[in-house]
């Protein structure tokens, strides 16, 4: 097989602008935009709306660039997994080389522009996030260890820290706690998905926890991480970004989340298969609302604080 055939093996048709945009993983980008925006608005320093808008946009572009580089590197396993077969490279719309070019160009562009629009520290933090997602997670951990999602989850947890850095130019305990919230949330969120996606990861040879350690062990891990997550999430209520609204939201959501994790832990495969993984699927759906509402509550506290309300 020649180099040319390797580079064009997926390409069969003309790509439109939307296909290149799909390389940036728009759905992941929406999470990046939201959490970065909350981090920026929760910081105790006002940012000019134009600078805030541009900074969030460049953070989103940086997140998208890392998604394109992830699709470039993982094109082989994306073609095997049902969940990712429609992505632009396995679908034959964009070549691997094009995805690499888009990813590298936008990575450099977004970091430089963020450094110019906000501050150098924010630009460097975005650069480290892209490096972490592409090199540490995609190239190294993902195909090597069942702890891939635990450590690699850090990449998705950086955006609120970058948003905070845009406003303050640094790091603080509040921004580290926002990082920890997403970091601890990622494993139970993904492991619940793994339980009902069944053979997808196994077919692709990705050593996810349920493939290497079994589904019983995955259920145990979901419970342990959910309990640790609950402690972090509720503890955040008593920091500078928390307040009574956040505490109320955190208490309700964590009670539901822990109950869901216990329910998954108590089930075995026969019971889950019998009802089509109903509990696992509802736990996964709850996990999406969980993160959105926690950050929504932080945003509510920050917004009210501007009117002398919110916080303790």
């Amino acid at each position, binding site marked *: 097989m020649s180099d040319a055939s390797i580079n064009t093996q997926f390409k069969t048709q003309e790509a*439109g*602008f*939307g296909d*290149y945009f799909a390389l940036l993983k728009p759905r992941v980008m929406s999470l990046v935009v939201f959490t970065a925006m909350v981090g920026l608005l929760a910081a105790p320093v006002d940012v*000019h709306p*134009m*600078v805030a808008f*541009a900074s969030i946009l460049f953070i989103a572009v940086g997140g998208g660039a890392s998604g394109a580089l992830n699709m470039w590197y993982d094109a082989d396993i994306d073609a095997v997994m049902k969940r990712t077969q429609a992505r632009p490279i396995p679908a034959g719309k964009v070549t691997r080389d094009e995805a690499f070019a888009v990813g590298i160009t936008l990575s450099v562009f977004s970091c430089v522009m963020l450094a*110019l*629009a906000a501050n150098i520290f924010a630009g460097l933090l975005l650069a480290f996030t892209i490096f972490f997602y592409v090199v540490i997670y995609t190239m190294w951990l993902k195909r090597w260890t069942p702890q891939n999602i635990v450590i690699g989850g850090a990449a998705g947890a950086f955006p609120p820290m970058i948003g905070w850095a845009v406003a303050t130019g640094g790091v603080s305990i509040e921004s580290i706690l926002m990082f920890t919230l997403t970091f601890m949330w990622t494993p139970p969120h993904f492991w619940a998905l793994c339980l009902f996606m069944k053979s997808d990861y196994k077919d692709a040879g990705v050593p996810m926890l349920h493939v290497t350690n079994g589904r019983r062990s995955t259920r145990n891990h979901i419970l342990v991480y959910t309990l640790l997550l609950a402690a972090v999430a509720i503890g955040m209520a008593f920091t500078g970004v928390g307040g009574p609204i956040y505490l109320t939201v955190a208490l309700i959501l964590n009670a539901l989340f822990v109950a869901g994790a216990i329910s998954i832990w108590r089930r075995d495969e026969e019971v889950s298969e019998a009802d089509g993984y109903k509990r696992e699927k509802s736990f996964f759906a709850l996990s999406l609302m969980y993160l959105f509402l926690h950050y929504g509550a932080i945003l509510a506290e920050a917004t009210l604080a501007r009117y002398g309300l919110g916080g303790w």
Partner: protein
Amino acid sequence: MSFREDHELHGRRFGRNLGVALTLVVFIGIVFGLTVVKVTRGDYEPENARIQN
């Protein structure tokens, strides 16, 4: 005055080219907006520049 007939490629890539053009226009708008904000609030005044560095 006559214009050359469009190549088939122009029609096929119209959507992609339009997307790139709009992206560039938005980018120019953002850079212009950022420049106006930073200049009017004095980010580039010598004393502020020294503090930032």
